[in-house]
């Protein structure tokens, strides 16, 4: 099984572990990740404005590169996934954006939204299968009580992201079960961590994070798990009431697969 892989800027810097553990675990599961050549930062936030083309182009380049290889485009960071998946939808459904982006890029073959964007978690669920993940686990994380933190970007808007039920998701909980741990359900698992507001209004981010962590702690979690470097940062650096270890889901997967760091 082979995918075009888009790591994104933060996975090359502050979130190296998300990337490294993800690559090793994929290899152990027989999944080949071919990093896209000369990829550019996705911009981290989806351009909601209908009149912005430049901020969509790096996504279109990556999508077109995957199409050339006839591969699905696999993402790992929640923000990259959100941006690229939504820009792909624009290229598929918005004739004006499609025309102007293609006029600008002048690709050999105009890009019209044909590539399928798939998140690493969806790859585990829909391509490998959680049963096969479970079968490959050498070191089940028995006794661990793990709170899944979805945040916003993987789930919403559900019409486009189409990963899971946006109000009662289960993909991360099913993942947690597959690696032998116990998922903990709590109220704020699909509410925002504050995101980029951390830079402009730290107190607002702290308020968000305290609400999330308090819920997870009250439900008995010993760890909270995320797919997003900015969620990781906020849950870790902006928690003021409780401290709860935050881990990337790929780190837990690598640990369960018995991959020695």
């Amino acid at each position, binding site marked *: 099984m082979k995918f075009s892989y888009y790591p994104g800027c933060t996975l090359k810097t502050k979130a190296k572990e998300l990337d490294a553990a993800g690559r090793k675990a994929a290899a152990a599961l027989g999944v080949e990740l071919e990093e896209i050549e000369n990829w550019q930062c996705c911009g981290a936030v989806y351009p909601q404005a*209908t009149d912005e083309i430049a901020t969509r182009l790096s996504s279109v380049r990556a999508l077109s590169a995957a199409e050339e290889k006839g591969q699905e485009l696999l993402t790992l960071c929640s923000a990259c996934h959100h941006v690229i998946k939504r820009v792909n939808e624009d290229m598929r459904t918005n004739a004006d954006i499609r025309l102007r982006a293609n006029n600008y890029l002048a690709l050999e073959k105009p890009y019209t939204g044909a590539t399928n964007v798939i998140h690493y978690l969806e790859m585990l669920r829909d391509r490998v299968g959680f049963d096969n993940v479970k079968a490959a686990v050498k070191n089940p994380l028995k006794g661990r009580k793990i709170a899944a933190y979805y945040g916003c970007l993987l789930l919403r808007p559900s019409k486009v992201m189409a990963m899971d039920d946006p109000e009662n998701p289960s993909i991360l909980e099913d993942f947690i079960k597959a690696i032998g741990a116990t998922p903990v359900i709590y109220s704020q698992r699909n509410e925002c961590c504050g995101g980029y507001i951390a830079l402009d209004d730290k107190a607002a981010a702290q308020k968000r994070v305290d609400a999330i962590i308090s819920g997870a702690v009250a439900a008995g979690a010993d760890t909270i798990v995320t797919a997003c470097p900015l969620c990781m940062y906020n849950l870790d650096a902006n928690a003021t009431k409780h401290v709860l270890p935050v881990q990337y889901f790929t780190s837990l997967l690598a640990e369960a697969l018995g991959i020695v760091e």
Partner: protein
Amino acid sequence: MSGNICTEDILRISGVNPRKCMQCGKCSGTCPNFDEMEYHPHQFVSMVRKGQIDKLAASKSIYKCLSCFACVERCPRNVEPAKLIEAVRLAVIRQQGMDYMRPDDIPALLDDKLPQQAIVSAMRKYRK
């Protein structure tokens, strides 16, 4: 400063039709940053409909949206209030000298763990 932004600009940039809104308030009820806003998501919708762009453009509320899309997901009329907030903010920061955050502001905000993603996001949301 913001007096030159017209309603048509906001409707065009956002692609939103505020007339679809039935003012149920669900968007504001679900907004995680409600407390920090002077004008709340449902008010953005009604005020754009009434053409009160100046008040919105002058308010710090345009920098308080987290782009979490809770209001978009949960609106029963598919109004997409977050797109209106984004459009008003863009109409402001696209003007000369109206950046809300500048690269020079970043070094003072850095810490060891801050991911690149946060800086890229802030530069996309707060400046043009």
